[in-house]
């Protein structure tokens, strides 16, 4: 598993384990919560949470492998208030919390929220709201 997938897995696990996980994210037909990395599958309807790597990677300042990444995590919905609710949930779940990641990675500093993010898009006549923030992930790996 590469580093980015480990980060995505850690964020997804953290969101899923939060007791305040909004039920609106549940895809009843798939029995799964709609939290995606990179892009939502084409047949998925909002609302959902999506996370994208913005910048960062290995920082190479010491013999231990260390990551310093910024990932944008946003809630997408056709309802502006619903998108804001998702953004608040993301904030509460991630900001100043640690991630459990596979492959030996672990956050050595809790996740920190950076800039907020909001974007409105109109796609095929439907208005979508993307609301969330940029999150800084700093992790090290003591297995390699």
């Amino acid at each position, binding site marked *: 598993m590469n580093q980015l997938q480990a980060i995505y897995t850690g964020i997804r696990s953290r969101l899923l384990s939060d007791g305040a996980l909004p039920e609106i994210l549940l895809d009843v037909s798939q029995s799964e919560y709609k939290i995606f990395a990179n892009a939502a599958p084409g047949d998925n309807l909002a609302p959902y949470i999506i996370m994208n790597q913005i910048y960062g990677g290995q920082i190479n300042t010491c*013999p231990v492998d260390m990551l310093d990444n910024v990932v944008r995590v946003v809630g997408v919905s056709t309802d502006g208030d619903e998108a804001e609710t998702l953004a608040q949930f993301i904030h509460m779940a991630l900001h100043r919390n640690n991630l459990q990641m596979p492959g030996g990675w672990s956050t050595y*500093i809790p996740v920190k929220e950076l800039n907020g993010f909001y974007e409105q898009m109109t796609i095929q006549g439907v208005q979508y709201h993307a609301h969330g923030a940029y999150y800084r992930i*700093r992790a090290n790996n003591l297995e390699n």
Partner: protein
Amino acid sequence: MAALDRRTGGAHVVRFTPQGGSAQVITADYTKFNDNRKLDTVDVTAGSETSRTSKPTVEGMDFSLSIYGANQSWLVNVLPRVQGVLEIMEDGIGVGLPIVEFTALLTDFSRNVAFDGAVEIEIKGMRQGAMSKEVGSVQA
């Protein structure tokens, strides 16, 4: 064009053995190592001369190591006043690889704690007496 043999700290290993203790690699989580040798001199310029002349006296060496604080169990062995053997192996551990070695007296232990950053620790010390393995030595 860059020199092909340009050196880096990628394989650098420093090992410390406190008196009465066991050897411990102290660079597993290091960010920077520095050592410095300096020869003291006295000015012996004659009163009638206009150009300075110096006479060499004693030579000393000090060093510093910066690491990330990670609750390393050996930190209790690198506090000020501890003496031990310091081995510097700039190409790593292995037969035939270079090594310098000397008895070190540890003098400084400082921590830098940032709210939104890793804890960084700096350890400083100085050589006691002569080098026990001078530059040019290799590991057996």
